[in-house]
Structures are given as C-alpha cells and as structure tokens.
C-alpha cells in the first residue's frame, strides 16, 4: 500500500473500475493462464480466482495506473501459490545449469548463426507454440510478458518481483533457448541443408 491513504471506492466506482479497467484484459489473462497451466479448466479457475482477488483488493488499485500489470501480478502469484505445487508436470530442467550454460558467448553465436528469419516466418503456429510451451516456466513467463503482451522491463520487474537486470538476462537466455528449439524444427523442415551440402562438396 502506498503512504497516501486512498479513499475507498463506492459500489458504483468499483463496478466502473472492474468493468472498465479489469475486464478488457480477460483475453490476455486467459492466454497467460493457459500457457502457464496447459489445461483449460485450470486456466479458467486461475483467471476466475485472479478476478475475485482483484475485486476483493480493488481498493489497493489506484485508478489510472497500469491495470493490466496489476492483474498479471496477481495471476502470477496465484499460479505460484496455488497451481504450481499441484502441477502434474514439474519442471525437469535444472535452472542453474541452464542459466550458466546459456550465458556463454559461444552459445549466443551458434544458436543464431544457423537459424534464419525466413525459416522462422515459414513455421506453423503449432511449432512456434510448442517451442514456447517447451521452455521451463520462468523462461516461458518472461517471453509471454515481453513478446506476447508487450510489457516493458520495468513492468515485468514489478510483475515478477525481480530486479530489472534479472529480467533482462532471463529474457536473453529464454530467447536463446527458444532459438535452439526453433533451430531444431528448421533443420527437420529441411532449411539450411543446402548450405551443408555445398560445404561437403
């Protein structure tokens, strides 16, 4: 809570804020929830819980501030507290290992030199979506927030409760991981083979 003691919203104001500032984000909220849980029912419950909490704590929302970021923060916290624990598919990736590995210059260079913008544009929605869904949840989350929803680093830092520097480095690593997967798809689609054959001639 801020230091300024905010007056409480009247019943009418609550409805106006809820309908005017919270409900318009429901599509983005559901998309985020679905990509966190991979389950339609869980995503639905998560969005519902988030909106209930938003309504209950509406007095701590300051009108005119970023409602979408405020809602995403509640959703993310609800996911960690209520859903992540009971998740059927725990993350199998060792975070530390991934973080160290993807921080080297070699990896930066290799992961991009074999993948072309044109092959990415030719990929199907399912391939892009699967590549994103295959990332460990912390990496997936930063990509969703930055690239799907267009949040700034500063907004992401608030949503995730981490410093901006961590947002930046985690996002960079997430993108390298994503490119690794996309590179695999591109190779299996046959992109880049011509070059290899030429080299072998």
């Amino acid at each position, binding site marked *: 809570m801020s230091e300024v003691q905010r007056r409480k919203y009247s019943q009418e104001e609550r409805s106006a804020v809820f309908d005017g500032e919270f409900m318009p984000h429901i599509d983005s909220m559901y998309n985020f929830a679905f990509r966190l849980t991979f389950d339609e029912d869980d995503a639905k419950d998560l969005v519902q819980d988030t909106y*209930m909490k938003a309504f209950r704590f509406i007095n701590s929302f300051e009108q005119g501030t970023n409602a979408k970021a405020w809602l995403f923060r509640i959703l993310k916290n609800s996911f960690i507290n209520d859903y992540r624990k009971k998740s059927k598919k725990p993350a199998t990736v060792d975070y530390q290992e991934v973080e160290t590995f993807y921080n080297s210059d070699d990896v930066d260079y290799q992961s991009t030199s074999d993948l072309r913008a044109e092959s990415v544009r030719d990929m199907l929605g399912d391939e892009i979506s699967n590549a994103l869904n295959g990332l460990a949840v912390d990496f997936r989350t930063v990509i969703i927030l930055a690239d799907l929803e267009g949040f700034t680093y500063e907004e992401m830092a608030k949503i995730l409760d981490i410093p901006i520097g961590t947002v930046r480095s985690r996002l960079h690593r997430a993108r390298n991981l994503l490119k690794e997967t996309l590179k695999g798809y591109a190779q299996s689609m046959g992109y880049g083979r011509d070059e290899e054959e030429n080299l072998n001639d």
Partner: protein
Amino acid sequence: MENNDASSPDRKLQCSDVSKCFQLLERILDGELVEEGEEMLQKKLDKCQPCFAHFHLEQAIREVLKTKCTKQPLPDKLAESIRQMIQDPR
C-alpha cells in the same frame, strides 16, 4: 542512408563482440533504448553482417510469437461467470 539488403559488401562478416551486441539489439527491439537506440541500431545494421542477421531473426521471432501464440480462445461464459461472482460475493 538505410541499407536493407540481406547482404552488403559494406558489412564485416565477423562480429567482434557478439554477446554484447546481440543483447544490445534485443534491448532496442524491446523498446528499452528509445532515445539512443535508433542511431546505434542503424550503425550496427549497416556495418555488421552477424548483427544484421540477428536483428532480423529476433524481429521475426517476436512477430510470430505475437501473431501465433496469443489466440487462445476464451471459454464461453467465463466473463459472464466472473461478473456474476462479483455481484454475489459470498
């Protein structure tokens, strides 16, 4: 002048500081370096082939993520049931 050719003889083929350059390009694409970004970006793209390729790759990835991963259809009646729930709080 803008040089948008996929390859250009003016560009060097090796980037001496790939990691730093790529992270910088990503921040520019993320809209984090609005003031100084434009000029820096043009310099890099004109002079360095790996930076040019990386920039366009990153741009393509952002585009496909945005167009292909944001269309999860909202379940019927979700919005309606939320509105109902807040009208009769327990």
